[in-house]
């Protein structure tokens, strides 16, 4: 835990960061490290935004929203010295796809073991699996470069920008033709179509494709979902090439490490302090007004909130050019997922005949067939939550006993699809929440029949709840959909992809900017570095 005040020590700062999510904290830390006088302001009593851990049930620490770490940038860990500030990542070694009445499919860290598992379903798939991984690994090097630099501006006539584009082009050119072709396909195809060029068997196909839809309002057959597959080959933990991991003590510990780093560089952080609006004078952001009436001044205001909230609520349409307001309004925030967190008396029995619990230590994906996942999407398109959803489940207490009382466990289920705009209207979610939670538990029960006997307590979060708690518009976990037309130089909107906004002195630093959502820290880092370079603070 970290002690924070709810009132600032001073009335004027170089920079105020609105929102104590991980990106806001990363940004604050970089600015403080550069010698700026920085204040970060969080409305909730806990820091972390959507990367937060809370003892929702006594003795049980839930990673309330975000539950795994994959793409957190290694250079941030080094530059902010996050390990010293308590960051510890426990690698996840397995991916398990249960099938009722069967041993299911487990993919292990050990390639040979994985091939044997896949061979039970298809020998051909087993033989191609590592080759696929190699190709994707090579492609991810290109993508890594994209997420670690601000988005190039293709419409710019500035020679510097054109040079950047050329550099990007050169990186692309440095691939051989096969890789370039693969890249064209990857960027545009659906996860299923892309994977079907390699593999033929279930549950391998839906298991892999499932990672392409997490957090999006798209199905595994929707074009544009393939490129997310890369993320699984891009994860870096401690600079080593490993895909996914848990943060020890819960996801919130990442945010807290960032917060401690920020404080160590001299930043100040207050909690329980909601910002009501950005103070604007003569078209320039000059500070913030808190909901409790307090006012704090700053030369620069940086929003870690999503674009919709930042501009339509905290700034206000009147202060902005009409065309920009139009762009922000059509920016898509459709929340599509929910979360069910369970406090368990023991580990549920998946009745798969597998010895031990080793295979349950990573993530457990409920995606038995392509049609299963696609049908879950079909229901959601018309405003229903999926009665049999796609689930990504983790039991972090198996690897990190500190999050549950001895012998007990926490289970976290990421649920898709749960559309924010249900047919009855988003405001009716509280009435549907129970049924939604039941659908999730019913689904788990088909794989682990004793799940209900294990449950001590539960927390069910619909996208409406996510919005209420975190402020994320429509409960979108990525601060806006990660669809092609909302990425790179178009994120959040055209001409404003470089963390600036039409209001002088007001900047953006979170997932609503390039390179987007997930617990990466990259937007916070890139925003801070851009501001420092361009004299924005």
């Amino acid at each position, binding site marked *: 835990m970290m002690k924070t005040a709810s009132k600032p020590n001073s009335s004027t700062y170089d920079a105020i960061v609105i929102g104590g999510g991980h990106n806001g904290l990363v940004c604050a830390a970089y600015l403080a490290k550069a010698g700026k006088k920085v204040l970060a302001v969080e409305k909730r009593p806990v820091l972390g935004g959507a990367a937060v851990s809370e003892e929702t049930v006594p003795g049980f620490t839930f990673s309330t929203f975000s539950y795994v770490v994959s793409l957190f940038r290694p250079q941030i860990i080094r530059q902010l010295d996050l390990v010293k500030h308590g960051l510890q990542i426990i690698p996840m070694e397995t991916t398990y796809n249960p099938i009722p009445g069967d041993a299911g499919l487990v993919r292990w860290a050990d390639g040979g073991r994985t091939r044997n598992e896949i061979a039970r379903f298809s020998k051909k798939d087993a033989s191609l699996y590592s080759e696929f991984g190699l190709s994707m690994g090579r492609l991810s090097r290109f993508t890594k470069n994209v997420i670690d630099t601000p988005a190039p501006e*293709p*419409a*710019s*006539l500035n020679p510097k920008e054109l040079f950047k584009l050329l550099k990007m082009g050169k990186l692309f*050119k440095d691939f051989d*033709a096969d890789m*370039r*072709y693969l890249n*064209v*396909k990857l*960027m*545009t*195809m659906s996860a299923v*179509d892309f994977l079907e*060029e390699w593999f033929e068997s279930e549950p391998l196909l839906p298991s892999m494709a499932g990672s392409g839809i997490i957090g999006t309002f*798209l199905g595994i*057959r*929707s*074009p*544009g979902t393939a490129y997310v597959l890369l993320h699984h080959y891009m994860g870096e933990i401690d600079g080593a090439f490993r895909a996914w991991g848990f943060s020890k003590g819960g996801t919130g510990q990442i945010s807290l490490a960032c917060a401690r780093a920020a404080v160590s560089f001299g930043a100040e952080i207050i909690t329980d302090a909601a910002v009501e609006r950005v103070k604007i004078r003569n078209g320039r952001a000059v500070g913030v007004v808190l909901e409790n009436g307090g006012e704090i001044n700053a030369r620069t205001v940086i929003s870690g909130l999503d674009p919709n909230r930042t501009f339509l609520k905290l700034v206000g349409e009147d202060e902005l050019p009409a065309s920009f307001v139009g762009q922000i309004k*059509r920016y*898509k925030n459709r929340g599509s997922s929910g979360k069910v967190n369970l406090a368990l008396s023991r580990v549920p029995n998946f009745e798969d005949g597998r010895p031990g619990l080793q295979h349950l230590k990573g993530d457990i994906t409920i995606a038995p067939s392509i*049609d299963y996942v*696609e*049908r879950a999407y*079909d229901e959601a*398109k*018309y405003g229903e939550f999926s009665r049999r959803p796609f689930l990504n489940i983790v039991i972090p207490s198996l690897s990190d006993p500190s999050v549950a009382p001895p012998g007990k466990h926490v289970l976290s289920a990421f649920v898709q699809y749960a559309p924010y705009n249900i047919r009855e209207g988003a405001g009716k979610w509280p009435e549907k929440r129970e049924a939604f939670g039941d659908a999730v538990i019913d689904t788990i029960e088909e794989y682990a029949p004793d799940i209900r006997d294990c449950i001590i307590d539960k927390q069910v979060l619909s996208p409406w709840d996510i919005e209420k708690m975190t402020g994320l518009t429509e409960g979108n976990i990525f601060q806006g959909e990660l*669809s*092609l*037309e909302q990425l790179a*130089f*178009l994120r959040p909107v*055209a*001409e404003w992809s470089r963390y600036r906004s039409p209001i002088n002195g007001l900047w953006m630093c979170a997932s609503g900017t390039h390179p987007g959502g997930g617990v990466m820290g990259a937007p916070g880092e890139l925003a801070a570095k851009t501001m420092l370079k361009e004299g924005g603070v």
Partner: protein
Amino acid sequence: MSFDVVVIGGGVNALTAAAYLAKAGRGVAVVCPDDEIGGLCSRHEFYPGYYSPGILSDTSMFRKWIVDELDLRGHGLVKSTSSKTVAFGKDQQIVFSESTDKTTDEIARVSEPDAESYRAMKAFYQKIGGPISQFLNSVPADIVDPETTDLWSLFKRGFQLRRLGKKDMLEVLRLAPMTVYDWLDEWFENNGLKAALALPAVTEGYSAPWSPGTNANLLIREVTRGPRVQGDGLALVEALESAARSNGVQFEPGIVDSIEPGRGVRLEDGDFMEAKTIMAAYGPKKVFLEMIDARLLSHKFEQRISKFRTRGLTSQLLLAVESYGPGVESSASRSGSRQSDKISPGPGNLNSGLPEMALIAEDLDGIEKAFDPVKYKEVTRRPCLDVYIPSEIHDDLAPIGKTVISVLVHYTPYALRGGWTPEAREELSGNVIDVLDEKIPGIKERVIGKELLTPGDIEQRYGLSGGQLYEGEHALDQLLVRPAPECSQYKTPFEGLFLCSGGSFPGGGLTGAPGALAAKLVMQE
């Protein structure tokens, strides 16, 4: 028999390519069975006395520059000024005509703001159309293995796009990968209008309004569209055939057995036609996987061609209909909207009061819901329909006073769970006729004969792989690199063999563009 060029296939692209090459003085032969001249616009008798007009009819995207360069007007081609499409929505209909003003007035009847938006949208397409048409009307750059000329052409395209201004350039980049659903939602409120604009574009691939990338299809349609050809596909083919013949193209009514690149083609009857240059107007899968000795293909290339996605999702229901006398009103006109000039009597067969063309889709979700079941290999209960009534304009397709209706049925699975049994065929046909009868009452009891072509049947009859009407799904990756890197610029790994079907850039449909662009490339080489 020896020629400079042998063109195999007899459709719009084949005839276009042949006409260009012959006009440039090459000795050209077109190899195609007589009854397959016209390709997707060739007729067949599907019920005694009733003829199908082929499967594609929309000529609005046939390139104007081809009409000019081949002087197709001199061969009888006339651009229509009066063609109309009636879009049936839920309790409403909108008549789309060649004039934007008239169409806007029609839209205003269902929504004033949408009429304004429609005009604005047309103006927007007009504004950005230039660089996009230029892109679509030239040999595509090879982005996978670019040479200097490709990089130069990419640079040129980028520059042309940038000349639109920063805002519009970024807008073009934003809209292309979008879903048609989101894009139309940004402009319009009326469900029927949105559905009518979306249906033809989203059904070009394995996609529906919610699928990302479908907006590129819509964009391409909108910027390349012009007036239709009077008489539609059948008339277009007649003009092209006439242009080809008058330039000296010889027609050889054989069936191609195999291609021997660089040497010629062997016909099924054993004849060999010698030619250094062969232009294949069949889809890439058919050309490389069926017509060329498999041993000549590298494994990688063979894999890539077989992975080219050609999942047909459209069936065609052909209806022979008893006299459909005047005075029968559509459901929408009965329900009280304005009556005048709703459905124009055609100049063809009879004054039946039927529209030449109609789209039936109530809203975008309706299209999406028609798509959902086919993903699971099931029959769609309420299909969306693209209706063409050729007997309104052609008097030789049905007995005097009778009607032929061709319905493209979206969506239909290629493989049906349980197979395409006679019962399954009846079920789908029944669903189609029910939907049709709701909008054009009285059709149901007047149907005297019908033929259902499932995607599998379409594959058989028209030689389209997978029954895919566009010779390969229109999806972003398959438009950028079509059909595979080794042959994305009409050239193939085989010296002297060129592709010129809709399976090449810029894609399928009655555009003539692949045929013309490939022919120009051959003339250069």
